[in-house]
C-alpha cells in the first residue's frame, strides 16, 4: 500500500517533484563541484609543497640571516666605485667573478643539526645548503661625476643558477628524496668530497648538459654524473653537489660555510606528532623558523592561492546559498502539496489511518524526491568536476624567497633583481577536480536531509489536520 500510494502520488505531481529534485540536484551538484575543486587545489598545493620538501619531510628548519650578511661581496658596486676613484682598480679592467653564495638564509651548525635529530618523535634530520651561483662579467667603466651605482652596474652582466649541497647518503628527508635519476647515476658515498654534480633535467635541457659535461660552480669545475627529475610542480635547484663540497666552496659574504647548513629537513614519527616536534624545535632553536606544510602553504602565492581562496570563500558560500534555497523550495512546495491533499488526508483519517502513517507517507514521498535529486546532483557534480578537468588552465604557484632571505646590500638595479629573484620559484600545476568518496557521501547525506526536512514540514502540516475540518474543505 505504502509504495503503491507513494509511486502513484509522485507520478501525479511529476512536474512538481521533478522541479524540487532539480533544485536539490543543482545545490548538491554545486557542493560536489566546489568540494572537488577545493580538493584539486589542495592537491595542487600539496604537489608544490611535496616537491619543495621532498618525500618524507614533515618540517624544515631555517635561520634568518645575521644583520649585514652579504655585505662583504666583492662585487658590491659602491665599494668598487670607490676603488676605481681611488685608482685601486683601473677603468677598463675585465671582471669575471664566480661565487657560490648563501643568499637566502642564515646558517645552522652541525651541533644544531645533531640537536634537532636527538629530539623526541624525530626519526630523521638531514642538513643541506641552498645556494646561488653568481657569475658577474664585464669591463670596469670610467667614473663620471654624479654617476650612481646603478649606471655603474649596467656595465656588467650576470648569470645565476641555484645549487643545493646535499648529503650523498640517499636518505630521506631531503631535497633529492623525491627526485628520479633519468640518466647517469646518483651520488655514492665515495662522492662525498668529489667535484661531481647532478643536474636537474629542465636545467640540463636548457643548458645542453649531459652526463660527462662540466660546469663551473663557485669557481670550481664539476663533472655532471647524472640527470635527475622531480615530480611536476616541484621547485628543484638547477644543480646538486655534495654537501661537503658546498661547505668548502660556498660562502655567506666572505665567511666560509665549513660544517654549516642553512636548511634542516626533519621527519616526524607520525603526522599526529608534527605539532609537538615543531614545538620542541622552536624551543631548541628559538631564533630559527620551523615550518610545516601548512606554514609553507601560506607562502605559496600565484593563481593556486587565488583558486584556493575562490574555492574556500566564494565557492563555499555560493554552494551553501544554493543549497539553502533548494531546501527552502522543497519545503514550501511539499507543504503546498499537502495543502492540496487536505480532503484526501481527512478521508484517510476517517478510515482509521493514524497521523503517523499519513506523516510517513508524506515523508516517504519527499525522501524519494530528495534521493532522486541527490543522484542527479552527484551526476551534475561529476560533470562539473569533469568540466574543470577539461577546461581549467594551468595554475601558477609562486613560492617567494622565504623569511630569512636577503638581497646583496650595495647591489642594485638589474643585477640585484637577478640575484634576489633566484630565491623565488614559479611553478605551474594543472588543476584537477577529483570527486572523492567523502564528497559523494556528503551528497547522499544532503539529499536525505533535504528530503527529510521537506517531508517533516509537510508531515507536520498533515498531522495537525482535524478530520472534520479536512473533510469540509472544498477542492
Amino acid at each position: 500500500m505504502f509504495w503503491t500510494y507513494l509511486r502513484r502520488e509522485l507520478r501525479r505531481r511529476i512536474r512538481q517533484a521533478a522541479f524540487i529534485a532539480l533544485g536539490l540536484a543543482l545545490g548538491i551538484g554545486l557542493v560536489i563541484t566546489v568540494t572537488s575543486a577545493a580538493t584539486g587545489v589542495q592537491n595542487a598545493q600539496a604537489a608544490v609543497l611535496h616537491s619543495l620538501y621532498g618525500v618524507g619531510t614533515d618540517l624544515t628548519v631555517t635561520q634568518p640571516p645575521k644583520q649585514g650578511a652579504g655585505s662583504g661581496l666583492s662585487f658590491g658596486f659602491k665599494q668598487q666605485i670607490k676603488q676605481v676613484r681611488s685608482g685601486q682598480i683601473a677603468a677598463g679592467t675585465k671582471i669575471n667573478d664566480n661565487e657560490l653564495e648563501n643568499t637566502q638564509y642564515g646558517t645552522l651548525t652541525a651541533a644544531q643539526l645533531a640537536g634537532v635529530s636527538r629530539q623526541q618523535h624525530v626519526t630523521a634530520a638531514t642538513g643541506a645548503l641552498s645556494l646561488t651561483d653568481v657569475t658577474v662579467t664585464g669591463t670596469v667603466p670610467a667614473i663620471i661625476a654624479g654617476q650612481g651605482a646603478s649606471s655603474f652596474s649596467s656595465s656588467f652582466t650576470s648569470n645565476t643558477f641555484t645549487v643545493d649541497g646535499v648529503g650523498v647518503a640517499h636518505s630521506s628527508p631531503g631535497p633529492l628524496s623525491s627526485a628520479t635519476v633519468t640518466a647517469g647515476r646518483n651520488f655514492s658515498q665515495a662522492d662525498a668530497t668529489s667535484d661531481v654534480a647532478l643536474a636537474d633535467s629542465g636545467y640540463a635541457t636548457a643548458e645542453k648538459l649531459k652526463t660527462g659535461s662540466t660546469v663551473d660552480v663557485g669557481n670550481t669545475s664539476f663533472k655532471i654524473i647524472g640527470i635527475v627529475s622531480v615530480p611536476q610542480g616541484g621547485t628543484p635547484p638547477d644543480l646538486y653537489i655534495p654537501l661537503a663540497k658546498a661547505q668548502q666552496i660556498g660562502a655567506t659574504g666572505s665567511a666560509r660555510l665549513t660544517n654549516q647548513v642553512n636548511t634542516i629537513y626533519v621527519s616526524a614519527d607520525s603526522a599526529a606528532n608534527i605539532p609537538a616536534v615543531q614545538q620542541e624545535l622552536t624551543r631548541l632553536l628559538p631564533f630559527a623558523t620551523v615550518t610545516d606544510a601548512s606554514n609553507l602553504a601560506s607562502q605559496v602565492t600565484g593563481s593556486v592561492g587565488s583558486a584556493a581562496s575562490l574555492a574556500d570563500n566564494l565557492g563555499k558560500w555560493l554552494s551553501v546559498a544554493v543549497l539553502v534555497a533548494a531546501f527552502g523550495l522543497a519545503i514550501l512546495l511539499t507543504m503546498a502539496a499537502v495543502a492540496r491533499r487536505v480532503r484526501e488526508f481527512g478521508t484517510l483519517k476517517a478510515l482509521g489511518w493514524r497521523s503517523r502513517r499519513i506523516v510517513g507517507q508524506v515523508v516517504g514521498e519527499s525522501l524519494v524526491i530528495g534521493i532522486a535529486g541527490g543522484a542527479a546532483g552527484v551526476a551534475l557534480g561529476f560533470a562539473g568536476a569533469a568540466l574543470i578537468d577539461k577546461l581549467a588552465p594551468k595554475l601558477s604557484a609562486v613560492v617567494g624567497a622565504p623569511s630569512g632571505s636577503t638581497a646583496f646590500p650595495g647591489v642594485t638595479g638589474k643585477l640585484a633583481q637577478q640575484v634576489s629573484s633566484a630565491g623565488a620559484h614559479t611553478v605551474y600545476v594543472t588543476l584537477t577536480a577529483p570527486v572523492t568518496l567523502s564528497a559523494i557521501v556528503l551528497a547522499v547525506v544532503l539529499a536525505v536531509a533535504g528530503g527529510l526536512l521537506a517531508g517533516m514540514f509537510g508531515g507536520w502540516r498533515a498531522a495537525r489536520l482535524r478530520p472534520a475540518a479536512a473533510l469540509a474543505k472544498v477542492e
Partner: protein
Amino acid sequence: MYRLSGVTKEYGHGAVHALRGVSLEVPDGGWLAVRGPTGQGKSTLLQIMGGLDRPTGGTVELEGRDLGRLSETAVTRVRARLIGFVFQAFNLIPTLSATENVETALAPLGVRGAERRRRAAGALAAVGLADRAGHLPAELSGGQQQRVAIARALVKEPAVLLADEPTGNLDEDTRDDIIALLERVWRERHLTMVVVTHDSVVAARAQRTGLMRDGQLTLARTSPDVGTVRPWTDAAGQQGN
C-alpha cells in the same frame, strides 16, 4: 448501540451553536435517517457520532465507550475497526484504483497484501463492480464511485455505517440504485446505519427519521415501510417540540 446525551457543539467560542443538546439512541442494527435543511447541524452530528470531531458538551457513547473522552489514538482505532463512512463527494483517492481505494480501509488494521487484495476484490464484487476493479476514480461514473466508497466502508465489516448525503451528487436513477444497495447491505449485515440526507425519498427507506433544525433533533415514528423485520425499540431521547 449509539447513545447520545445532551450533545452540544459550538464554534468560535460560542458564536455558532451547531448542536444544542441532542439526545438520541440508535439500537444495534437500527437505521436512522437524519433530514433537514442545509446548515442545521446534520453533518456535524454525523461527524461527532463518527469520532471525526469532539462535542463541546454531552456524551457520545458507542458500544458503551464515550468517544468524546477517548484519546485521539483510541478514537482512530474505533473508526478503523467499527465505523464505515460514505461521503457525498465519494472521497476516493484519485491516484489509486478501485481495488486499492477499498484496500485503504484495511491498511490500518494490519491486513497484509494478498489477504487485503482478496477482501477488497470480494467487497467490490458485492457492490457489483468486479469488472471495474483496476479503474481509477476518474474512469468511473458517479454511481460507480459511490459503490466503490460503499465497498470501502464495508470491507472491514464494521458495526456502524455513517453516510453523509450518499446520493447528494447523483441523478435519480443512480440515487435509487445506491439507496437500494445501502438497504440491502443493511439487511444482510445487520449494520447500525445513520444516513444524513435532505432527500425525503432516501429518508423514507429508513426505520426512523430524525428532523434536524437549528441544532436540535426531533425523532419521527418508526417508518412503516421497513415494517417488523427488525423493530426499533423506541428509546427515550425524543426532543420535545
